[in-house]
């Protein structure tokens, strides 16, 4: 679709950059999580592999790669193999639409620091995040294990429920930015971040994305106290690794989206835009880890109750109020 070879090269470069940064960041997010949790619990965390344990992700990677690739008896072979990819790939794909810096000028080209600036970007995010459910559902179902099946049924129900409130919480953002295009949304926040106008929507979005990436206190699909490891109980080696890393990619991506939708994206004074963006994403990642270190897991009925009876109505009311406000303001 693109004529210019430089454009194609730039596009490929951006894809490669995003891939590299996201995967490395996800790996180190695992490390950071273990460290921060350890600090919260007055421990030291991983500190044996490399200086301050910095090579721990590498060691984990080697471990996961060299582990036995195990498939339980009675498992559905192809779905069992496919599911981890179905969990991780949509998460990475979403990042294609996230603008992670102000447009640059390079070789006489204006380069959007964004892989693809779709006019329906926000809808693509909704679409892909709804498809990510399949990884969880099929992985658990194909394992032929009761724990995994229970985990995946929980995951299905939870992801469908919280997707609703997540989508509804984004409607006011669209109403304010008057566009589904993410670069438009970011530019609309050049003056004032949407979190100022929409604190409620932000809170709903924050809670919903925590549920979307199955983080504590919403980690019921893998509740280790009851379901061993939930939907990925039967996975080992790199297939488990994909599920695992998918969760952290999800954190980064959803953090990036929260930044884009509510915290002004790459906008910020003094520092370069990409730095601002990274700082905001990392702050979100830290928030997730911090919450994990603090809150206990919800009960399943509490989770459902909260999603359907509190978050969704609140989001609807918020849309209504925003709509009236916009109409009144003209």
């Amino acid at each position, binding site marked *: 679709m693109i004529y210019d070879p430089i454009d194609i090269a730039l596009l490929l470069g951006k894809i490669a950059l995003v891939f590299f940064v996201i995967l490395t960041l996800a790996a180190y997010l695992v490390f950071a999580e273990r460290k*921060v949790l350890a*600090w919260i619990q*007055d*421990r*030291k965390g991983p*500190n044996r592999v490399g200086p301050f344990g910095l090579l721990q992700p590498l060691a984990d990677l080697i471990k996961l790669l060299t582990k036995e690739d195990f498939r339980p008896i009675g498992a559905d072979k192809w779905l069992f193999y496919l599911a981890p990819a179905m969990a991780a790939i949509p998460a990475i794909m979403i990042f294609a639409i996230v603008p992670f810096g102000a447009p640059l000028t390079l070789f006489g080209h204006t380069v959007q620091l964004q892989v693809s600036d779709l006019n329906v970007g926000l809808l693509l995010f909704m679409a892909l995040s709804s498809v990510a459910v399949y990884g969880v559902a099929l992985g658990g179902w194909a394992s032929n294990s009761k724990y995994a099946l229970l985990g995946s049924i929980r995951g299905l129900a939870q992801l469908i429920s919280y997707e609703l409130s997540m989508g509804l919480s984004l409607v006011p953002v669209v109403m304010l930015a008057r566009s589904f295009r993410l670069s438009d949304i970011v530019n609309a926040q050049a003056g004032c971040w949407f979190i100022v106008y929409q604190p409620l929507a932000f809170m709903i979005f924050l809670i919903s994305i925590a549920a979307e990436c199955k983080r504590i206190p919403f980690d019921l699909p893998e509740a280790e106290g009851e379901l061993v490891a939930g939907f990925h109980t039967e996975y080992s080696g790199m297939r488990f690794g994909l599920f695992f890393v998918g969760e952290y990619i999800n954190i980064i991506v959803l953090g990036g989206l929260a930044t884009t939708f509510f915290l002004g994206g790459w906008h910020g004074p003094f520092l370069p835009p990409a730095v601002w963006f990274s700082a905001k994403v990392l702050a979100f990642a830290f928030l997730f880890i*911090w*919450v994990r270190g*603090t*809150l206990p897991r919800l009960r399943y009925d509490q989770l459902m109750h909260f999603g359907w009876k509190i978050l969704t109505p609140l989001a609807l009311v918020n849309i209504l109020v925003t709509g009236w406000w916009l109409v009144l303001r003209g």
Partner: protein
Amino acid sequence: MKILSDIAALVTGMWITWKHIFRRPVTIQYPEEKRTPYPRYRARIVLTRDPDGGERCVACQLCSGACPVDCITMQSAEDKDGRRYAEWFRINFSRCIFCGFCAEACPTLAIQMTPDFEICKRDIMDLVYEKEDLLIDGCGKSPDYNYYRHAGIGVTQPRGSGAEEKPPVDVRGLLP
């Protein structure tokens, strides 16, 4: 307002964990830093001797009876001087859970636990300790205790000459 108190609870929790991030870790880096266990620490089991140098163990099998994991086996036998002793005595440390019931059950204070907790072995069969591995040249705790002095039957000393014992009754004596 319930919701306000709920939010306050959330924030309090978050604040507490935040504070802990900056605390000093309590972790001790084990192989580099070692700490000295207390004298009553329950680790490797030893068999002690009485103050006279004899084996304290009388192979009464109370320790093996008390052992919840059945890691102690022994065979009692009679020595030439009438002393009951362990012909062989075996503790399987790969089974032992260091609960200390054996030391608690021991009526002669023979079996005692020491603070030596580093007893890993490459071969699991090396963790089967026999009597010669367990027996030490000392009294351990309670250095003055000698069971046979208090048993009330004459084994290490003539009958009637132990602690709290009268001399033997002369059955044929006419005096009441």
